[in-house]
Each structure stands twice: as structure tokens, then as C-alpha cells.
């Protein structure tokens, strides 16, 4: 794990060396800020429900944009060879890159703490759902990062990595809203697959082990897929 931390440090730093981090963070804050505060005063309720309702959709665009370069860039520049011939295991590499993406997500969420603080000044804010919401946001960011990382390890083209990652994340977000198109027998299973469904549970302030397990299993599947994809390349 010590070696994974070196890779994490390098990846995290390189986000902030290039303009990527600043662009993604500004767009994220603009979009969430605009959509959260526009109807906020109309509802006249001191909660962050609108912010968290929006988050899965925004994350399905933003997270793949953050993860798209993690492997695709290395594959196209050729530094992938340098990476693999250093004395590190594939596990170290995958973990380092995954953590970089998750911590970046956390850094991106930090400025949004201004929303609950503002809201709590305006009215009586219930902090339970807020804490749950942020916890869920990190889990969601982790799950989407794992998916983005996996897609990125499959192609040397960053645009493909972005679009494919976005499609998968968006699909997971919307799947439980599409259920009325589907046969009755599949409802239970497919409903369980919906990332939004689990996220909304947590963001209500109800921390259920089933929801946490869902996000952790998506992480596991994504990371394991990445590991396999890298092994296959040898």
C-alpha cells in the first residue's frame, strides 16, 4: 500500500498541475449551485434535498471526466510501459489511481459545504440528512470512479473513455426511473441496481448496510475489472 500512496500522490498532484481540475470543479460548482439555489427560495424549506437529488446526474458527467485520463492517457503516451516496469504491483497502480480520483471528488465536494452552512443560517437545518448525503456522495463518487477507471483502462482514447463512462454512470442513475418500461419480474433486481435509488436512501439520513454494500460492490466490480483488463494487456 505504501507504493500505492506514491502513485496516488502523483496522480492527485497532476490533476492540479493541468487545468483539468479547475475546469471540472468550476463547472461542478456552477451547475450544482445554479440548480440548487434557483428553486431554493421558492420552496422556502431549509434542507438540501434538491442538491442531493441532483448529485447523481451531475456526478455521471463529472466523474468520468475526472477518471477518463487515468489510464487512457498513459496508454496513448506510452508511459504505461514505465508504470508497469516499475517495482509496483497492478493492485498498487489501480488503488493509487482510484484513491486519487476519490480524493479529488472529496476536494470537489468541499466547497459545497458552503450550501448547508448558508442554509443553516437561513433556517432550522436538520444535519442528519446532510451528513448522510455527503457520506452517500463519497460512496457514489467512489463507485462511479471505479467504473470510470475501468472504462479508461480499456481504451487509449480519452473521449471514448469519457463517453462510455458517462453512459454507464448515467444508465445506473436512471435505471430505477425507467422501471415502468420493464416486465414485472425484473423490477426487483433492476431497481436494486439503480445508483440513484441507493443514494437517495442514504441522503435521507438513513444509513442502511444494504446501500453501503451496493456502492462497495460497484467499486469492487469496477476495480477488479480494471485489474483484469491490465493483466490481459500483458
Amino acid at each position, binding site marked *: 500500500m*505504501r*507504493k500505492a500512496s*506514491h*502513485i496516488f*500522490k*502523483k496522480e492527485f*498532484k*497532476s490533476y492540479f*498541475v*493541468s487545468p483539468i481540475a479547475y475546469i471540472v470543479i468550476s463547472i461542478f460548482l456552477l451547475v450544482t449551485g445554479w440548480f440548487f439555489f434557483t428553486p431554493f427560495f421558492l420552496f422556502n424549506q431549509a434542507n438540501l434535498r434538491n442538491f442531493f437529488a441532483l448529485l447523481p446526474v451531475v456526478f455521471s458527467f463529472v466523474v468520468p471526466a475526472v477518471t477518463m485520463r487515468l489510464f487512457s492517457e498513459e496508454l496513448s*503516451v*506510452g*508511459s*504505461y*510501459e*514505465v508504470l*508497469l*516496469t*516499475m*517495482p*509496483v*504491483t497492478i493492485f498498487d497502480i489501480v488503488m493509487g489511481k482510484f484513491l486519487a480520483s476519490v480524493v479529488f471528488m472529496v476536494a470537489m465536494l468541499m466547497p459545497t459545504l458552503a450550501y448547508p452552512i448558508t442554509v443553516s443560517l437561513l433556517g432550522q437545518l436538520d444535519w442528519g440528512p446532510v451528513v448522510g448525503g455527503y457520506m452517500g456522495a463519497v460512496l457514489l463518487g467512489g463507485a462511479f470512479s471505479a467504473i470510470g477507471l475501468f472504462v479508461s483502462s480499456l481504451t487509449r482514447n480519452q473521449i471514448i473513455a469519457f463517453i462510455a463512462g458517462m453512459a454507464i454512470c448515467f444508465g445506473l442513475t436512471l435505471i430505477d426511473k425507467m422501471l415502468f418500461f420493464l416486465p414485472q419480474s425484473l423490477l426487483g433486481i433492476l431497481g436494486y441496481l439503480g445508483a440513484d435509488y441507493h443514494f437517495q436512501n442514504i441522503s435521507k439520513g438513513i444509513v442502511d448496510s444494504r446501500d453501503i454494500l451496493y456502492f462497495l460492490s460497484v467499486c469492487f466490480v469496477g476495480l477488479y475489472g480494471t485489474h483484469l483488463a491490465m493483466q490481459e494487456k*500483458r
Partner: protein
Amino acid sequence: MIHVENLTKYFNDLCAVDQITFDIQKGEILGLLGPNGAGKTTFLRMLTGYLAPTLGTIRVKDYIIDEHLLEIKKLLGYLPESAPLYHDMLAYDYLNYIADVRELRSEQKLSRIRRLADLCGLNEVMHQPIGELSKGYKQRVGLAHAMMSDPEILVLDEPTSGLDPNQIVEIREIIKKIGKKKTIIISTHILSEAEAACDRIIIINRGRIVADGSTEAIKQTASGEYLVNISLQSADSKSVERELSSIEGVVDIGFSNGEENILGVRLTCKSSADIRGEIYRRIKQTDWILLEFHQERRSLENIFRRLTQEN
């Protein structure tokens, strides 16, 4: 030090490396020669753990590549072809990162980076992004990267490709400097480079070894002949031919007219016997004036072409 046995690599149906077997001794500078697509880079990539062999094994010291990949990677320093690096990182940050991954202790790190910067001539570019460096400097950063942990084995894939002649000489100097203590494997298709820097040469063609030995040995066994060039004044080609072609061991004789009254003679001789003394004695008996006399081995280029263009 390194033992390669029956190493084979298939890319789908294409056989890139075909049952290669050889040993590399400690302290040897080995040149891997071959035309483009011969399998040099594929072999090096298997040795460094980037690719997994389809068949066969590589043993480095007591480690087998399938089981102890991490230990082998620790022993190796690798400069990949065209030194692909992270373009948005500063040279210093990059080397620092490599030092971290190679687990140098923090008090050692700075002095090691300084030493490598001196050795590879990187001091003035340490704080520039790698993407903005010229090819030569990128190559040097790659070389510093390969030597970071002071590895016992250095693997350099075409270290001088794309460099200007001055840079080639500089890189060659660096390799010679470090080569005194380390085992080095260089792949190249520049023959003069291999000849200048390597103790031993392996020529690969279509994934197979076609020649293996010191440069001299390869030249002799591969050609079986050597050339003697002579310049004579006030001699005519007929009498020279009569006089010299009767020496035993002379296979062929050719003439070229240079400046006026100077005759260039080119003798092809069997490498089994050294007949230079006999040639000199014959010339001494005549009243020709000997201006020049030197032996020329068949150049590596010829041998290379012959070995790699067969079949």
C-alpha cells in the same frame, strides 16, 4: 546473472520472439541487434515484466519471472524506447516520484537526484516540464529514471535513437561510465553503436538468434575472410596481380586508380591464415613504393545484412 530459456511470445498468430535461449553474465554489456520488427523490444519488454511470455522462462539471479516479478523489477532499470514520460510533470518532480516508488530513503533522495542530474547533464532543465524538453533531454531524463535505484541491471531500448551525433557520443560516454560496474543490455539497430559500446552482440532476426558472440568473433566466423588494402606507387596492375595473387590464401584481387601513379590494391584473404608478412616480403623484392598497408575486417554492416536478409 540472467538466464533466458526457450522464450517465446505470440501476438495472436504473429510470433514475435521464437524460442530464444541464452545467458547474460554479470558485468557484461550486451548489444541486441536486429532489423525493425525483429523482436528486440518484445524481448526487453518481457525481461522487464511489461509483457508476459507465452512460453519459456526468464531467470534473473535466483528469481523466476512468473513468481518473483516484483523482485526482478527491483533489480532492473529500464529505459523504454523513445522514453515515454509524463509530459506535464517537471523533470525534478518526475525523478522525485521515481525515487519514491523505488523506495529511496528521503535523506538519500536529494543527493541521488543531484548525482544523476550531474551524470546525465540535466541540471539546467530540472525545473522544466518534460513535454517541453528536446528529444535528447527527454532521453536523458529517461536514463536518469532507469538509474535511479542504482540497479544491477540496466536495460536500454534504443537509447540513442533520434539524437544528434553530439548527444549520441554523450549518451555513449554515460553508458561506458556506468557500464564498468553493471550488467547492461542495449538494443539498437545502429551497428557502430553496438560495436563501440558492447562486449558481446546478439543479432536477432524474425524472433530468432542468428549470431551471438563478441564483435570480432561474429565478424570472423560470419565472413571467413578479411581485406587488405595496399597503396603502391610506380606499379602497374598486371605485375602486381602476377606477384600477389600467387600467395596462398589470397582469394581475390581488385584494383582502383587513385591519384596519378598510385595504384590501390584490394586483396581478399581467407581468415584462416595471416599473410600480411608474406605480402610485405613480396613487395619488398620489387621496386614499388609502399605508401599504405592496412587490414580491414569485414564490416559488421555486411554481416548484419547477410544474416538478416537470408531466407
